[in-house]
């Protein structure tokens, strides 16, 4: 059963730049297609300012398309982006398009505080992860904040992610990554590099892998677990009589050392086969 089919309401994205980015919000508003599921074309406008605890779902709902309109928030003139479009399938943004538009969006925010505000906003619309999914084995390693990531491959072979963090800024990054990757094909996901998303940084340099660059770690984790899912799917498809499969975290040959184990990625990936 495709786990995405029980989705029923869209989320909106409300962005709050202090300046209008000419590319981002031209006179005639552009529609950024923040969408996850090709089937959810018809959407209504709902502007949650806070994550809805009820919506804690294995299948997080994501954005459809947005349009910008002015409003005032936190004492700054801002732009709120309202969902309202019918987005035909062929207008759906590819991962590459999304990466490009995200880069454009963050590049247009030259003031650090605006970038932080934007991230906080994106954080606020990321559906929270169930308590039961906030477990050690879903942790993304190497972060100064806690990040939990669930990765699933659906029956069509595309990827679904759920992610959450105890830090709001980190959650904002995660929210952006979700928008880019959720529902995408593995090849698309694996083609993105940290440099492609470098404009999303708040403060950190574009280049180089840093232990504290949370979204790098989340990105790598999403990609590593996607790879694991692809591998497992290949293996599973070559087996008959397979219903459902859950990959456990790697068990390493040679056993742990000093009561430690080698954790490069923490692949917990499940996928469904009809």
């Amino acid at each position, binding site marked *: 059963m495709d786990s995405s089919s029980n989705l029923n309401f869209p989320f909106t994205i409300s962005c709050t730049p202090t300046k209008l980015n000419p590319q981002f919000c031209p006179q005639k508003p552009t529609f950024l297609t923040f969408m996850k599921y090709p089937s959810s074309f018809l959407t209504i406008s709902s502007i949650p300012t806070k994550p809805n605890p009820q919506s804690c779902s294995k299948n997080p709902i994501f954005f459809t398309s947005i349009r910008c309109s002015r409003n005032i928030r*936190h004492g700054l003139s801002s732009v709120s982006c309202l969902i309202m479009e019918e987005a035909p399938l062929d207008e759906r943004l590819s991962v590459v398009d999304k990466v490009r538009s995200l880069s454009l969006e963050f590049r247009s925010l030259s003031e*650090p*505080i605006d*970038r*932080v*505000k934007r991230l*906080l906003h994106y954080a*606020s619309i990321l559906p929270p992860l169930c308590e039961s999914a906030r477990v050690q084995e879903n942790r993304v390693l190497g972060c*100064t*904040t*806690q990040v939990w990531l669930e990765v699933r491959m659906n029956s069509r072979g595309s990827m679904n992610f759920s992610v959450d963090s*105890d*830090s*709001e*800024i*980190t959650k904002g990054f995660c929210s952006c990554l979700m928008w880019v990757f959720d529902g995408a094909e593995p090849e698309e996901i694996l083609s993105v590099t940290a440099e492609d998303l470098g404009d999303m940084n*708040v*403060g950190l340099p574009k280049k180089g892998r840093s232990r*504290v660059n*949370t979204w790098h770690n989340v990105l790598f984790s999403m990609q590593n677990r996607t790879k694991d899912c692809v591998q497992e799917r290949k293996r599973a498809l070559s087996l008959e009589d397979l219903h459902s499969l859950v990959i456990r975290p790697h068990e390493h040959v040679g056993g742990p*050392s*000093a*009561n*430690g184990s080698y954790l490069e990625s923490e692949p917990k990936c499940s996928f469904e086969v009809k």
Partner: protein
Amino acid sequence: MITTTTPMEGAMLKLPCLRSVSRNTNFTNRSSNSFPWSYRRLHISASASASASAPLVEGPKLGPGSLGHITRSDFPILHQEINGLKLVYLDNAATSQKPRAVIEALQNYYEAYNSNVHRGIHYLSAKATDEYESARQKVANFIHAAEAKEIIFTRNATEAINLVAYSWGLSNLKPGDEIITTIAEHHSAIVPWQIVAQKTGAVLRFVNLTEDEVPDVGQLRDSLSSSTKLLVMHHVSNMLASVLPMDEVISWAHDVGAKVLVDACQSVPHMVVDVKNLDTDFLVGSSHKMCGPTGVGFLYGKSEILSGMPPFLGGGEMIADVYLDHSTYAEPPSRFEAGTPAIGEAIGLGAAIDYISEIGMQQIHDYEMELGNYLYDRLSSVSDVRIYGPAPSRTVKRAALCSFNVKDIHPTDIATFLDQQHGVAIRSGHHCAQPLHRHLGINASARASLHFYNTKDDVDKFIDALKDTINFFTSFK
């Protein structure tokens, strides 16, 4: 409650002789015109009341002409803007900044006499060897070691701890032996001992915190027994800011025949540390935390213990003779310095020691105590802030750092905003002390840590920035 016993440098307090330290002409002029005298007056009046340490509001040492104001100009990196705002650097427990004297020593080495040590008979090599060995002597003098050969240069404190673990630990510990440490250690003082315990069958035991959030030395004393072979302990906590009475602790350990390794990473840069008085067997420190370059640290070990230890790494420099089937090892310290060391960096560390010794470690300590108390007072007055570690009082002294959390705001969000919006650099995360964080029931904390080149203005800017940060995040809820 723990009373701290800080070794004193001597009754006479040295006056800062910054002229010879600073090569900044502007600054030299200024200091020769006004600062030394005003500083001397301030300092002497302050020293009379230095022992009375009820939480301080604004002590006389903190005003214009303070040690921080005087020395700031020696640190080129501090005079820059971050996001259009003046940098306020409060991440000194992670690493310190480098005075011009250290940068110049490094530059001079690479420009004038870069060469391998102990290997060539040519002029450059001889000069490099002299300077490198002189740096070793400076470290020895600085921590009051009896001889330079008791100092082994390593890459950092972590490597120094690993050296003891792999060399002394693997050859001296057997099943059932106990290594005692605390839950408040830096990971670098925990993980090597986990490895050694697993390899040797020794048992690793951890001392908890008291209610005052200080490692419980009473519990530690009770846990010592004839099975205890090693005590591994920090001198000053990088998270709790607690200062442990190491001289007492070491004597208790020696009473049961145990050896002691002191992690002095957070004490050596900020106070007088005297290995002879402490009578410690091993002590480690990192250059980069004491105004020296990265890439070099040191292990102090009592000569008789070092002589009996096998090498840690094999290679050039650490051997007497090599045959195809075996080698004979050089005497310490060479035995433990396989391969080409970080020569320029060790020389840079020597320059850093010259620089801070010139100011005087007791003065650095006194100033930091006052500034640290000021930080504690101001931070504890911000609502919804919880500071970890002991509260300062007449008997309890804290190091000049505060790890804290603000209710409902992640420390990483705080650190990000402080950096982005205010140019204030603090640390967030678990500060390589996860067991301690777990014990305190938290995953992460923020930490502001001071050094002698920080000023009261830095603390004020930090507090204002923190209040703004809290308001910002609160408005988003």
